[in-house]
């Protein structure tokens, strides 16, 4: 009963604010998108049918409901263009998240082992790129990767290559861009879990006969798994839907689902198919989110 008393007045408002936010800015828009995804394209304003119009009365709404169909989703499943782009999105996300983990873990580990006053400096260095606009940084990469760009100049100067390498419009360029852009999202959660690890645990493992390497695998790594989970999801989910980086750095021979969405929406003006693609993307991302939720809940239970 005391718990109920706590949530009165402004406190109660604070408690429901996140839900209000979710309803207003996620569920309601998602409802719109879901509805459009079940509609048909039309040359009209808005460019789809049916349109719910409450002024036309109950029968009209019933008819509108009857006109909804799963045709767009059937199209998505049957047209290999869409299926391939989903697959490509997943592959790109898996590959770049793996690279991010391989690069980010040692960096986070090193940061956590720095003397206390250097840790905040390292943290600043990780965050500093955010002070420049994301798009500007990607354009900078285009500059670096172009035919006579910095990278090729260095490679030529070091005689590592004899002729300029084509970087732009390749998957390599896209992966460089993705890893570069998402690295802080991998490092920060990893660093947070590694930094709060009690160093005496490693000493205890050492004391009980585990070499430093074994102690890493038996203690540091398992205890950092919540951070790994958070970092992987923070990178994986946005990368699946990534649009700007593949569009600017990768070739146009195969597209990621984000690019398909853009094409359908702005070039083909096919809002229903674009909406269906967006809904399908969301459904695709539900399993990893559920997994993360499970992990977090288990961690909370452990921390009791």
């Amino acid at each position: 009963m005391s718990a109920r008393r706590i949530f009165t007045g402004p406190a109660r408002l604070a408690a429901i604010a996140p839900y209000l936010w979710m309803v207003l800015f996620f569920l309601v828009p998602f409802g719109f998108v879901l509805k459009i995804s079940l509609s048909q394209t039309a040359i009209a304003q808005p460019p789809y049918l049916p349109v719910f119009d409450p002024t036309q009365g109950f029968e009209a709404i019933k008819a509108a409901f009857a006109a909804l169909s799963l045709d767009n989703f059937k199209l998505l499943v049957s047209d290999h263009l869409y299926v391939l782009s989903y697959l490509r999105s997943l592959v790109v996300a898996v590959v770049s998240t793996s690279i991010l983990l391989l690069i980010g873990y040692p960096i986070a580990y090193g940061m956590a082992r720095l003397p206390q006053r250097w840790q905040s400096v390292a943290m600043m260095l990780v965050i500093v790129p955010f002070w420049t606009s994301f798009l500007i940084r990607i354009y900078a990469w285009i500059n670096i990767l172009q035919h006579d760009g910095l990278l090729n100049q260095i490679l030529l100067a070091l005689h590592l290559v004899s002729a300029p390498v084509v970087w732009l419009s390749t998957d390599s360029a896209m992966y460089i861009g993705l890893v570069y852009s998402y690295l802080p999202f991998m490092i920060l959660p990893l660093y947070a879990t590694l930094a709060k690890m009690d160093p005496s645990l490693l000493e205890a493992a050492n004391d009980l006969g585990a070499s430093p390497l074994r102690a890493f695998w038996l203690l540091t790594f398992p205890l950092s798994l919540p951070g790994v989970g958070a970092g992987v999801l923070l990178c994986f989910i946005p990368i699946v839907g990534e649009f700007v980086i593949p569009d600017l750095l990768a070739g146009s021979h195969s597209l990621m689902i984000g690019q398909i969405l853009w094409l359908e929406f702005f070039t083909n003006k096919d809002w229903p198919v674009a909406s269906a693609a967006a809904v399908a993307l969301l459904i695709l991302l539900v399993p990893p989110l559920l997994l993360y939720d499970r992990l977090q809940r288990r961690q909370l239970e452990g921390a009791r």
Partner: protein
Amino acid sequence: MAEELSKPEPQAVSADLPLLRIDAVVKTFGGFRAVDRLSLDIGAGEFFALLGPSGCGKTTLLRMLAGFETLDEGRILLNGTDIGPVLPHQRPVNMMFQNYALFPHLTVRDNIAFGLRRARMPRSQIDTRVAEMIALVKLEGLETRKPDQLSGGQKQRVALARSLARRPKVLLLDEPLAALDKKLRESTQLELMEVQRRLGMTFIIVTHDQEEAMTVADRIGVMAAGRLEQVATPRELYEAPGSRWIAEFVGDINLFEGQVASREANRLAVSTNAGMLLAAQPRQPITNTIVAVAIRPEKVKLSRRGPMPDPLNAQAVNRLEGVVTDVGYLGGLTTYKLKLDSGAVLRSSMANTARIDIDAYSAGQRVVAWFTPDDCVVLEQ
């Protein structure tokens, strides 16, 4: 040539070297000497206790033995070999950490088995050893719990079991029983002594509890500011403290400062603020004239009239008169605080041998306090 004769003895080398020799070790933290040229020999099978105020370097010394701190100076010899270059995970030394350092993602059972698995012990043996350890620390039924589902005392017992499980040659225990209640602490002390004796292990225990040190240890080392002030058996430490500081640190004591007035064959007369006191001549001859006479409270007897004249025992007796100002009933003991006629304060404690004590004194009562010269210790600064 004499050396040739003694050579056939195979253990000759280790026989004159103790199991553990700590030789003038120094550890500095940014200019501060946490351990300051400390030397100590500990024999095989010994139960050694380190006693000392907080921050005097006890944990640092243990960490050097376990290999977590490098020595700035000095050597540590185990069985005659310098273990300085031996990494912690290769030392036959285990440590129970002051903060337990239990592995949070492992169950009680896996925590205890951790060291055994690293030693590549066969699984069936691990199971029996773990069960044995769990029984020893009375954690039956909690085997599958994780550390954060345990109480403070239970965690401490898991840490103890984990460090004991490998049966190291030397076990370092950093305040192993501090979080246990009195009953459990006392029974665990007995268990520790029993395990130590049965397995012939060498234990070095750090404790704040003097009674605990006295109970479990063969010898006690009193540390202050990174140095060992005295190393002695519990009885010696209590009855013949090496300095005023130790006398005050270990147990309760009455101290009276004064000047040596006269010396006889086996007796000193010291003129103190409590009056002239007779004390036995200490083993080490006193060089100073300014000294302190120390008497443990339980050696101060109280009576209404003073000691009975005893013709058989012509020994002189110290006799001080005063008024009881404070009475503290502690169950087994009653402590009295007296204001002597000389103005000095004297504490006395007496065992409550009868349930209804008609001899108990009350505040305001005039009494005579007396003790023999043999009960006094004369200490120089």
